[in-house]
């Protein structure tokens, strides 16, 4: 009976999707660089916090894509980049070490002391340069799309499935050479 209840519990737990979403995506041009700001809400739930506090490296990966906007067809992807934010709790030092990796390369490390600062560091991305536009950038309206990957959950208690947010589209903009 306990097995059945455990299986049922695991099943129901696996069905619970993270209610996370990207909000406030703002894109601006700094010369020829595309700078993005956005926030992730609803991701910092108890399981994630428990995992971080346990000292296990925990990451949120932001997938950022640059598309050429097309009115009556699918948008055309031009470029893609990933920003991985990895948090590791050092219980002895009573601090959270946060590492930012852009396309797999470490670009910044930060240490914060409290949970609020950690959540802000992991979920609020301010003016991050994500793309560099050039001569080969197509004419027309451009759009930036962002989604966040939040790790995996077990479907039916044993099938690992990736959990991610929906794509969030930015305002459309043009690159004037």
């Amino acid at each position, binding site marked *: 009976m306990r097995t059945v209840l455990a299986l049922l519990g*695991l099943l129901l737990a696996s069905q619970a999707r993270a209610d996370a979403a990207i909000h406030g995506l703002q894109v601006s041009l700094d010369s020829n660089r595309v700078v993005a700001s956005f926030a992730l809400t609803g991701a910092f739930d108890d399981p994630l916090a428990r995992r971080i506090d346990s*000292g*296990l490296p925990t990451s949120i990966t932001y997938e950022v894509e640059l598309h050429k906007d097309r009115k009556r067809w699918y948008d055309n992807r031009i470029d893609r980049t990933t920003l991985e934010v990895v948090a590791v709790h050092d219980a002895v030092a009573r601090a959270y070490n946060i590492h930012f990796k852009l396309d797999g390369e470490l670009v910044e490390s930060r*240490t914060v002391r409290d949970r609020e600062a950690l959540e802000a560091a992991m979920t609020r991305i301010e003016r991050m340069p994500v793309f560099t536009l050039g001569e080969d950038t197509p004419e027309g309206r451009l759009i930036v799309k962002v989604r966040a990957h939040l790790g995996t959950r077990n479907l039916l208690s*044993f099938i690992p499935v990736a959990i991610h947010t929906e794509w969030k589209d930015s305002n459309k903009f043009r690159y004037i050479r």
Partner: protein
Amino acid sequence: MKVRVRIERLLRNHRILFGGLAALLLIFTSFFYLSQRGRDLPAALVANRVLLFVLWYVNVILILVVVFVLLRNLIKLLVERRHRILGSTFKFKLVATYVGLSLIPVLALFFIATELLQGSIDRWFNTPLAPVLARGNAVAQAFYDRVESTSLRDAAIALRGIQGIDLERAEDRPRLTRRLQELLAELGLDVLAVYEGTEFVHAVLDSQSGIADLPEPGRDFLGETARIGKAVRMGVPAGAAGRLVLAGVSQGPQGGVTVVAGTLLDPLVAEQTDQLVRDFQAYRQLEVQKDDLRASHLLLFLMVTLLILLGSSWAGLYLAKRVTVPIQALAEGTRIITGGDLGYRVKVEADDELGVLVDSFNRMTAELASNKEELERSNEELMEANRLAAWNEAARRIAHEIKNPLTPIRLAAERMQVRKDQGDPGLGQAIDEGVEIIVREVEHLKEMVDEFSRYARMPRPRPAPVDLARLVGDTLGLYRDLKPGVEVESRIEEDAANAVLDAEQVRRALINLLDNAVEATDAPGRVTVSARRENNHLEIRVADTGRGLPPGSREKLFLPYYSTKGRGTGLGLAIVHRIVTDHHGTIRVEDNQPQGTVFTVELPAS
């Protein structure tokens, strides 16, 4: 060797299928490779991902093939069972037994293992270890909190203690040093440093602490202190054991004075406290991974369970096939051999008891063929002997029949010769009598020859609609009043009145039967001819109340040249039998009740 041959045959027979799968693999892999290349990933990462994709594809295809083959066999088994194909019931039972026998223990094992795992995990996390670790961690955290708050308080005291000293003036520097030394000793600190904003001003160290160099708090720490008024950091001091707690207190925003007080914890206390924190963190890591651990074990159990069920189903099908294929071959062989082909041999590759059974069956078939040949040969010999015996009997009877008239002919001729030699005046009368005898006997010989001739040249019957009642009535008319005291009568039922048969031949058969019946019946007696329709047959019975048949004569009654009367040609009943069989009918003879004999003729109704 056999496996290699089977694989080669499989590849040859399903060339298109395997080619298609390989082409799909190539196409999918190409698309996947291009999509990965389009993301500007490192070449090594792309290669790894493509390799993983190919392995995943092959695994999925193999799993699908196994599942497909298994399902196909099971569905085929169900269809065969529904159509009651020989061996399908046995096959179904064997597979069901195998699956059933493995299903119960495997499921039991699965649930027990899951339960044990579940229980073990729960017990592990429910042990008193958890609260002990939590309490240890709480103690460590309280200790850290106290050290931090004490350090912050000391830093604040030190900040107040240096107020009034102009940090910019070089003349005040010795005073600052003295004041810091006093505060260091007074507060029991190991490090005391002064910053203006993030710029270092001055610092003093406790020479007894063992700290070799002034610890660098870092711009982040100083910035945080300046921004929010205070900050705390813990780290490992350079050149000393233990843990150094740095507490910074600032006068105000950027540009204000910041005092950083450092307290070096006792190495043993620091190490034990850190260990308490690390142990609790390790425990929390396990707790966080509890569900993943459980899920991975559950997946493992499930996979093993499915593999065992798959294996048992496969084994059941394989063993059932090993048994049912020879059985089906034997059944097919039995059917063919029953059809008369004794040359058929069952060809099944089996080296077990079923192989022995197949060999025995083939040997039995060979024996049957040999015996049949022997029997046919014996039969032919017997028939030849019978024919010879029949010819002997025919020759004997013909000789006898011919001899019977020859004797009176010879006697009549001799008597005429004697009368002539004696000059007997009654020669004329003797000649008349002799001629009469000779003519009569020759006539008898001629009748006999004609009878033989008719039997030998009896034409095929030509059936036509006949009024059977009239036919029987006309025939019986010949025998009425033929023998005084013997009554002849007919009983033709209405439904038998009309028939389709060769009237002349049936009349002849009736005459032969009535001849025998009337002759065998003494007065007072009765001969009855009856006819009726029975199912699809016309039944004609000739019954008499005569002497009956001698014992042992029935078997030979319808043979040519056989007679119980000791005279006649012996062809009467043989002719009857032939007419009846030419009409596709049967004739049988039985005792009449209470006495006499009854012949029953059954002819097809149409």
